[in-house]
């Protein structure tokens, strides 16, 4: 069973509909106990980090995510699910789950003609190969909508970047946890393909093949 975590943060239904479209069985659950039983977990979410962390604490889902991570369950984070897994977020100076070392930071753009939030389609440059990033071409674009992004402390946790007034991290990972800042469920064909790869992923990351070229 694939569990989609419902903690009151945004468009959970869209994620499930994308799963239906790609033939992936899933359940939406607000119950921490379900995460223990789940074979895979999607941790989605849009909204503000302080509210999200508050909800995760209150419901016990935050602790359940940590346990599932420790147990080796493959987890895919989306958007907020890529932000609150770091140590802390600049948004409301919020302590976060700490599954990946680093901080979630706000865009600080020199170019004042660039708008925040970063909304729309952008291409993704893969820095390190990962089973979920397989077959992604530099011209494939994904849908973003965010003002903050994850900045891992160690390069080994940074898997892909995108460019908006400079490169920023858009995919983070640590062992069986992988998360993207963009929305695969809203990114057309290439996003749906990523969800399909997640449904097949066993949570392991092959030994580093070194940084990938441009």
């Amino acid at each position, binding site marked *: 069973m694939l569990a989609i975590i419902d903690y009151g943060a*945004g468009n959970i239904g869209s994620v499930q509909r994308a799963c239906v479209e790609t033939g992936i069985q899933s359940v939406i659950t607000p119950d921490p106990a379900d995460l223990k039983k789940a074979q895979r977990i999607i941790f989605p979410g849009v909204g503000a980090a302080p509210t999200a962390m508050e909800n995760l604490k209150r419901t016990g889902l935050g602790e359940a995510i940590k346990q599932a991570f420790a147990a080796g369950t493959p987890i895919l984070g989306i958007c907020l699910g890529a932000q609150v897994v770091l140590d802390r977020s600049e948004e409301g100076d919020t302590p976060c789950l700490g599954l990946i070392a680093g901080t979630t930071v706000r865009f600080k753009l020199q170019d004042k003609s660039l708008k925040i*939030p970063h*909304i729309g389609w*952008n291409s993704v440059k893969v820095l390190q190969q990962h089973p979920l990033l397989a077959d992604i071409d530099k011209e494939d674009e994904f849908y*973003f909508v965010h003002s903050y992004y994850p900045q891992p402390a160690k390069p080994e946790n940074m898997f892909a970047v995108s*460019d908006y007034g400079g490169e920023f991290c858009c995919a983070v990972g640590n062992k069986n946890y992988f998360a993207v800042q963009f929305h695969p469920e809203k990114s057309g064909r290439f996003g749906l393909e990523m969800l399909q790869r997640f449904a097949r992923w066993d949570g392991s990351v092959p030994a580093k093949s070194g940084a990938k070229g441009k």
Partner: protein
Amino acid sequence: MLSKRLIVCLDVREGKLAKSIKFVDTKDIGDPVLKARQYYMDGADELVFYDINASRANRDITLKFVEAVAAQIFIPFSVGGGIRSIEDATKLRLAGAEKVNVNSAAVKRKELISEISGAIGAQSTVLSMDVKKTTKTREIPSGYEIVINDGTHMTGMDAIDWAKIGEKLGAGELVVNSIDADGTKDGYELTLTRMIADSVGIPVIASGGAGKPEHLYEAFAIGHADAALVASIVHYGEYTCRQLKDYLHSRGIKVRMKF
């Protein structure tokens, strides 16, 4: 680099395509879901549905329609028309709309923008503004005035001021719809679009007047828009989304070419 967006607008009434695009193709009559799917496959970056006859009575029909669309397209889409409360906005979000558009109701009661933005986030709150050119006065220094109720009622509000207020209250995007250009197919209102795009820090969507691919190019290159909204130019089969994007790409505008 971020791509410029092509947004297709569909008018719906009680879950059916409104008359304006009803005659496109006989087998599509009354099925905006099919049409939406077609645009999705053809490379539209986003869709917007305006429920032109939204009322409390048919709200459930709208929600069912939104759910049906959400099951078929996997790009963002927004819904506008008759949104007057947090509850309206939240229900549409849960039904699968990525964003909601507010227009006249926000002009009548500004707090609506901050309420919705607080509940579902700025990124999901779109302020649509209908604008008419007028004489420059002390109240309307830009010479562009906000109109409501489908352009029938002048408000005495300056369009640039309203755009800035909307941003401040928590709108995440602005749709700038020129009532003068709408339906003319003579091109977007570039002066207006540029004035607003240069005055706010949130994305601006040009709307009204697209008749040929060059107009979209102008909206981006001259109007400084982040996205361009099209309707009849694609509904009547004159151009496909792909053709519009091929053209923009050939003119050096970055658009999403693989879909």
